[in-house]
């Protein structure tokens, strides 16, 4: 009898060990692709990077060398346009949610930002096509900017809300106590206090938008030449990678890796900064 109990106990302990190991194993398997992709991109990309890559234009088909200066500029302009459309909406909506959003409508808006973040970016691209490309009868950077702007809204809105909520209540109370109207207190006291957090949140949204390809394919299209005209097709880093990855030239493939490396480094820097700035505050708030 005693022996059987002991056996059972032993059995339960073994199961426990097995399951614990499986859990740890799945963490390892999950993290492996991160390192594989990061270091492979690093190894492939670094050889493609030189001053030319940042400052020169793409060479004609068949010639080696050249760069992606137009794509860098294009991504910057597209993101600028995206911010122009997306940020005012996000910041005001975020203020609403934090300051007045404790009701059914606020809850609904929060729910819809979540739903919006689940809509595939390619669908957002199709909508931007219908809204901008069709009436203008031309692919344009403007359409790409609209698509990126819509894609920024969920992240930017929710972080703005979170960051404003982190500002201690005493700040608001002190402002109201000396007779400042609530809207002024929000704009002049609360917002500047939350600014650091909001800025990094916005950067996070920007980083995500910078990595988007699908919504640009038939809005901003792409362009092998230098262009800063937002009414016309424009190059971008991600579409550059896509075109160069599919091309049958080794040199172009190499440059695709170079561009991917630049993109990943930018995105990781922003993510790590966000983590650093909001460390403690954001994390503790959630727990």
């Amino acid at each position, binding site marked *: 009898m005693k022996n059987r109990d002991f056996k059972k106990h032993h059995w*339960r302990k073994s199961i*426990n060990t097995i*399951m*614990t190991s499986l*859990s740890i194993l*799945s963490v390892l398997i*999950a*993290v492996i*692709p*991160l390192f*594989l*992709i990061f270091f492979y991109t690093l190894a492939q990309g670094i050889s493609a990077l030189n001053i030319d890559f940042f400052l020169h234009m793409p060479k004609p088909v068949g010639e080696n060398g050249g760069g992606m200066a137009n794509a860098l500029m294009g991504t910057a302009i597209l993101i600028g346009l995206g911010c122009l459309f997306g940020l005012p*909406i*996000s910041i*005001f*909506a975020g*203020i*609403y*949610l934090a300051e*007045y*959003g404790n009701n059914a*409508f*606020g809850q609904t*808006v929060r*729910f*819809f*930002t*979540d*739903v*919006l973040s689940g*809509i*595939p*970016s*390619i*669908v957002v691209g*199709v*909508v931007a096509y*219908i809204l901008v490309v069709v009436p203008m009868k031309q*692919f344009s950077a403007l359409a790409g900017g609209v698509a990126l702007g*819509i894609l920024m*809204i969920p992240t930017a809105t929710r972080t703005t809300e979170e960051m404003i909520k982190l500002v201690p209540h005493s700040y608001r109370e002190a402002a109201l106590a000396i007779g400042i109207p*609530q*809207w002024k207190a929000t704009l002049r006291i609360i917002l500047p206090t939350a600014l650091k957090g909001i800025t990094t949140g916005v950067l996070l949204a920007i980083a995500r938008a*910078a*990595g*988007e*390809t*699908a919504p640009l*394919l*038939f809005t901003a*299209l792409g362009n092998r030449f230098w262009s800063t005209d937002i009414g016309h097709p424009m190059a971008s880093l*991600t579409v550059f*990678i*896509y075109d160069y990855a*599919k091309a049958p030239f080794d040199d172009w493939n190499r440059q695709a890796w170079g561009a*991917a490396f630049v*993109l990943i480094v930018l995105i*990781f820097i922003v*993510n790590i900064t966000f983590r650093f700035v909001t460390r403690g505050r954001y994390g503790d708030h959630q*727990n």
Partner: protein
Amino acid sequence: MKISITGDKVFKSTTILFAFFVFALVFLMAYEMVRGSELSLKQFGWKFLTGTVWDPVADEYGALPFIFGTLASSLLALVIALPLSIGVAVFLSELAPRWLERPVSFLVELLAAIPSIVYGLWGIFVLVPWLRNTVEPDLIKSFGYLPLFKGVPYGFGMLAAGIILAIMILPIISSISRDVLQAIPKSQREAALALGATKWETTKIVLGDGKSGLLGATLLGLGRAVGETMAVTMVIGNRSEISASLLDPGHSMASVIANEFAEATTDMYTSSLIEIALILFALTIILNVIARLIVWSMTKKFKTT
């Protein structure tokens, strides 16, 4: 005094207006896409969903191969990613000490920050050759008698798409599952441990409590997989055929839009592609709404008790 009250009203209305815009945007998108796909909605009706012919030259469009490809690749991704994600979530919420939990969840979240296009690039140059030269020949040799593994080792195909998607949805499933598990009250674990349960037996109870939340996390992951475009487009092979084999090239709704939208020449062609976007939109909205409702009600339940 009066002025300041007006200021408050104006400011509040402005913020309400923008908040309302976020809410209205989802409906605006739906409306625009219905309008944009009017032509093909009228022409093909429900047959659009069951048609298997996609022939721009004859101006005939059926979306079944794409719907099939999207569902097949996403489900395959789920089969791979779900057990791993639950394992990661259990580790983060139940096993890891706090000093380890933070960096590990950050690494997993970083995986979600890598753009789709980079996954696709890695897929083309690393994953696909590896599948073609190493994995698929072995699969065919050992399991070739199953319809699931019949065919030629192209590399490009359903299997590649499923694996890439699995890597991409793992972060979202595991981080939401972790949140769900962490929302379950400590007392549940303490009670189990006090009765002499092992760590795993306790975890089983916690997983049981969080069942509905984990389902929500899974559906969110599925929603993400269904809409994923670039990485899938680059590895799935882009052939509009319905095949039982994982090794055969396929197509997905998102990838057909990505591939053909800019080159769609006739109005019917564009309209059909917009209708595919509409189906994709409806599918992801449904998945997201159900999933969010489940996760919300679940975390709320434990927060209030």
